[in-house]
């Protein structure tokens, strides 16, 4: 092999090696970018999920939602304390509920609104809310706050709005701030009076009486619906309800 041929062979070999090294480098770089992108996507997805799960937890005094919706649902309906509807309605539907109870929240959102615009609006039935404190001791100030709102004709707005903004059971969200935010959004005008009322001996006694009534009937859970009317033998048990159907049937049968 001549010197010239030998030089050409070496040059070819060097170029091949350089190309191979270049290809490897580029491959490595591309895979690094890909891995970086994968890491970034993992971070973004985790942050997205954390934000989504945190945003809808409820129990947040700084963002009380659905006040207008509740206002609209209850508009035109008479309220006396925690009794909703015509006081002379022949049938009384009683709900024993705990404001912290998630199943009560579901009942409040799904089962009751059809009654508001049906039996209650038509004057066939009134609905009484009574506090049965089963979740934790935080249920007690919540119950007192609802009764105090009822003293200003906004009891049902308070109950319905509390349910729509309910936090996780016994998680400590039932603070004075939270209760005040719900009361304000529920349309309680005199917050100073509401504050005084909810801590008064009279309201505390009323909370206790509702709870003891539920215990004396032998109720074990919330929500428990009962009905009283011309065709019932006193207060009769309906049970829990997550849709309006069974409640409407019971009201019909009782009247």
């Amino acid at each position, binding site marked *: 092999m001549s010197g010239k041929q030998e030089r050409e062979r070496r040059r070819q070999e060097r170029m091949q090696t350089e190309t191979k090294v270049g290809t*490897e480098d580029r491959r490595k770089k591309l895979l690094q970018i890909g891995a970086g992108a994968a890491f970034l*996507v993992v971070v973004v997805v985790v942050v997205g999920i954390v934000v989504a799960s945190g945003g809808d937890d409820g129990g947040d005094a700084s963002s009380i939602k659905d006040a207008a919706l509740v206002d609209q649902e209850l508009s035109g309906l008479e309220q006396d304390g925690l009794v909703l509807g015509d006081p002379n309605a022949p049938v009384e539907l009683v709900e024993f509920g705990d404001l912290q109870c998630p199943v009560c929240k579901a009942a409040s959102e799904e089962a009751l609104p059809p009654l508001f615009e049906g039996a209650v609006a038509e004057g066939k039935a009134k609905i009484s809310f009574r506090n049965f404190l089963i979740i934790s001791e935080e249920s007690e100030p919540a119950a007192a706050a609802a009764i105090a709102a009822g003293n200003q004709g906004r009891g049902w707005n308070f109950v319905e709005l509390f349910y729509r903004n309910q936090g996780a059971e016994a998680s400590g969200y039932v603070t004075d701030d939270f209760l005040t935010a719900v009361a304000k959004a529920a349309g309680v005008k005199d917050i100073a009076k509401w504050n005084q009322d909810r801590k008064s001996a009279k309201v505390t006694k009323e909370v206790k009486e509702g709870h003891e009534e539920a215990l004396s009937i032998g109720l074990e859970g919330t929500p428990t619906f009962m009905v009283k009317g011309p065709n019932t033998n006193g207060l009769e048990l309906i049970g829990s309800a997550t849709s309006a159907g069974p409640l409407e049937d019971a009201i019909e049968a009782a009247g």
Partner: protein
Amino acid sequence: MNFPSEAFLRRAIAFVAALGIGVATYITIAESGGGSPACVAGGHGCATVAESEYSELAGINVSIFGIVGYVLILATAFLVSDAARLGGFALALGGFGFSIYLTYLEIWEIEAICQWCVASAVLMTILFVLSATRLIGYAGSDAPPGATEQLQN
């Protein structure tokens, strides 16, 4: 490690992306005007998901993002270059991540499942696997002459 040929991967990506365009387009059309996609086995999952606050992002229906994503992924299947390999992977990766997020919303926040959204999530997952395989297997390799025409013919 033996990878499937890049031509096979590109054909598979093109096929799955085309299916994805079909699914996302159906969801977009069904939801336009306040409707919802028909749930195959009955139930109201699709209506619940379509009516939820999460069905739109910045005022745009999320299925439109799906169409755009699938179209771009389809485009990368027709090109043979490192940019196409990386671009296709990045798009499928983003789509896959977004699908995980949407599936989380369906299960835990909206508490309803829409079969069409699940179908799209499955397609995006397949695209992610295919495009990751394409990137890992062929990143840095030179484009064989006439490769672009091969797929088109």
